[in-house]
């Protein structure tokens, strides 16, 4: 019975999901994104093949997982490379078609009779009511008016004595907060005349500002100027070269890379940040390894009691979520109200400026990162030290060697080789340790002699983040180009690492 049921619902499920997939592809295609629709169609096609063909049986298990990894890990990587070659930014956010559409929908107010306007509450939404001087009344359907986004709505003629509308008119205090959204609304009246808000109680008739020409340029109907799309810069420009907002995305070739490596305003902070990034990652590895290996040696010493207790306590910094411990340190190091400065003041009478002095900020980052990172090194070293044959130490004890000799002549040389690849991956991780910087200093203190937003403690990744998401220009293209540069560095590190691991494995055999 169960098997019969399975025979029925399995194909049914397949058909339903295929139809749903087709519907989504249609929807995307209609929304004007044929390439995206094509991609989805291809995925859907592969999916249908995998789940219906007997030859692709193994892939049925792989398809969902591989698809997720491809779409959310691989695709962002590839897309980052692609964005690096465009001028994608808050100024050039739209596609060419959308930017052109934006201009074609722009309106300007013309001479003519204006409309008396009032706004009416309709439960959670609002209706716009317009009254023409000749006494005709128009009203729109209920509108949310939550976000200031361009919106074109139709208004229908109403009988003048519509009681439902006249009772719920909004007074000025309630009207004012809705103005940003209302300013973006264009009302189309039954006679195709359009109107927009022109005063607190008034809508004025408008006309479309631009008319499309055959050669792709647009003519401004108000002053007769012609604007053309410049595919080099990604803006519509007037004849005199003035660029108009909004711009659109275009490919700019290697321009972003040229900016990073040749323009002094970008090159100089890039080099300074790069040096600090390498120093930070390198010193972090040195410090965490030094602390970790000493603790690991102590914890592997059989003469020591309570080792299990020590181990748990020493492991604690690793177990606490990073975002909490980093913020705890941010508060403790705080210059005015932090506990660390309070103690330093009581003991030595000093209160260092941990967040405004570049070198102190850097030392603070290294202190906190060592605290966060040594347990990992400790655990790694403990495993490796355990694997060292104990007869080596017995032999050295007979020869009368002390613990220091043991450490430098036996322990360290023997764990050096297996730990090197792990140290390199720790270096690569800290090279991109975004969370620490973002939560502790945010890259500050900022450079005072540069125009781009960059700080003394910024790593390359946090610099990228600031260019993309915090700088007012939101220069996604430039940020993606820097990301690509970091990608290449990480890739080189990974290759070195793979080589070393392979050499180690071969020697072990």
């Amino acid at each position, binding site marked *: 019975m169960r098997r019969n049921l399975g025979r029925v619902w399995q194909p049914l499920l397949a058909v339903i999901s295929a139809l749903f997939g087709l519907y989504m592809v249609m929807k995307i295609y209609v929304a004007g994104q044929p390439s995206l629709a094509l991609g989805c169609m291809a995925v859907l096609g592969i999916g249908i093949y995998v789940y219906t063909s007997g030859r692709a049986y193994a892939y049925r298990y792989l398809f969902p997982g591989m698809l997720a990894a491809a779409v959310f890990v691989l695709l962002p990587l590839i897309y980052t490379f692609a964005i690096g070659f465009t001028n994608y930014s808050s100024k050039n956010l739209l596609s060419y078609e959308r930017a052109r559409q934006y201009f074609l929908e722009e309106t300007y107010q013309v001479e003519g009779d204006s409309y008396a306007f009032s706004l009416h509450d309709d439960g959670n939404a609002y209706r716009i009511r317009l009254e023409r001087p000749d006494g005709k009344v128009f009203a729109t359907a209920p509108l949310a008016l939550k976000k200031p986004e361009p919106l074109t709505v139709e208004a229908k003629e109403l009988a003048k004595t519509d009681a439902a509308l006249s009772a719920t008119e909004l007074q000025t205090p309630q009207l004012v907060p809705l103005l940003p959204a209302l300013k973006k609304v264009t009302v189309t009246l039954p006679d195709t005349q359009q109107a927009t808000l022109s005063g607190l109680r008034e809508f004025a008739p408008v006309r479309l500002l631009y008319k499309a020409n055959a050669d792709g340029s647009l003519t401004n109907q108000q002053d007769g100027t012609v604007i053309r799309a410049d595919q080099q810069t990604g803006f519509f420009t007037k004849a005199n070269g003035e660029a108009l907002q909004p711009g659109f995305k275009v490919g700019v070739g290697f321009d972003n890379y040229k900016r990073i490596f040749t323009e002094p305003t970008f090159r100089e902070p890039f080099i300074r940040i790069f040096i600090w990034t390498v120093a930070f990652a390198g010193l972090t590895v040195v410090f965490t390894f030094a602390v970790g290996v000493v603790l690991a040696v102590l914890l592997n010493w059989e003469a020591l009691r309570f080792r299990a207790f020590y181990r748990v306590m020493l492991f604690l910094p690793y177990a606490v*979520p990073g975002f909490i411990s980093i913020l705890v340190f941010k508060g403790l190091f705080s210059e005015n109200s932090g506990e660390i400065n309070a103690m330093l003041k009581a003991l030595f009478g000093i209160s260092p400026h941990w967040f405004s002095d570049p070198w102190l900020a850097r030392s603070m980052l290294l202190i906190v990162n060592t605290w966060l990172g040594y347990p*990992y090194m400790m655990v790694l070293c403990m495993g490796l030290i355990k694997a060292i044959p104990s007869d080596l130490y017995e032999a050295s004890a007979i020869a009368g060697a002390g613990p220091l000799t043991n450490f430098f002549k036996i322990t360290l040389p023997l764990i050096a080789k297996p730990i090197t690849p792990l140290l390199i991956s720790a270096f690569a991780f800290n090279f991109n340790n975004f969370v620490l910087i973002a939560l502790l200093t945010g890259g500050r203190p900022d450079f005072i002699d540069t125009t781009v937003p960059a700080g003394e403690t910024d790593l390359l990744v946090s610099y990228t983040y600031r260019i993309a998401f915090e700088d007012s220009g939101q220069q996604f293209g430039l940020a993606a180009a820097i990301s690509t540069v970091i990608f290449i560095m990480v890739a080189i590190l990974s290759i070195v690492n793979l080589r070393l691991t392979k050499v180690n494995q071969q020697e072990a055999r």
Partner: protein
Amino acid sequence: MAVVLDKSHRWRVIAAHVFLLAFIAAIIFPFLMIISISLRPGNYAVGELIPSEISLEHWKLALGISYQGLDGQLVEPQFPVLLWLWNSIKIAAMSAAIGLLLSTTCAYAFARMQFKGKRMMMNSLLLMQMFPSVLALVAIYAIFDRIGSHVPALGIDTHGGLVLAYTGGIALHIWTIKGYFDTIPVEIEEAAKVDGATPFQAFRYVLLPMALPILMVVFLLAFIQGIIEYPIASVLLHEKDNLTLAVGAKQFLYPQHYRWGDFAAAAILSGLPITAVFLLAQKWMISGLTAGGVKG
């Protein structure tokens, strides 16, 4: 080991104990400090390690209870800490469950089946894992912006979108589970197949029950990853009520409205359960750590 122990050996043991205890004291100082801060009144006062006056005001705010301040004003919680914690747990649990489902099926195919491109797929999974998602934030933002314009429930500033973004990072989980499957003898499944089980039935009713421990471990790993993830969440979530704890906790320490005491209570409240889960799972995680996962 050497049998004869001289005097200097005993001194060394004592010195080691003293050193370790002093080191541990320094290491856990921030934790002790934060407990004391959460219990003393006020957000600015610099105080002693053991507060002379104990006040529960910060804890009340962290738990979402308003209280009456010194000047008689009603002090209301400024940040929805419990809501953030719930958001974090919800997102981490959902992404861990989906990630586990996807990675278990993939691991089964990799461990038990022969097909074209198997080696290449496994190696490229490992390669992809080497590039942190921080580097692709711009692209991730752009992708979810676009998804959101077609399916609003999965766009920017939605939990669905964030869960989806997390499900991609399953490469290490696949390798971990595959490694465990490899240690389970294939004969048992073959016996089931001889008795007429389909490959899926052999997987679902024979292999999965035996692999339960590793599935638990991978779920916990993915869960903790989801809780502590900061970069993607900070890019995708904006609205105050949508934030996860990792993104929201930062807001306590903005210079404009510095809430040191409130933060301390919230940090303990949310950090304690996560730390407990982590310590529980760490026994198994260490083997995973040495395999290549890095933190700190």
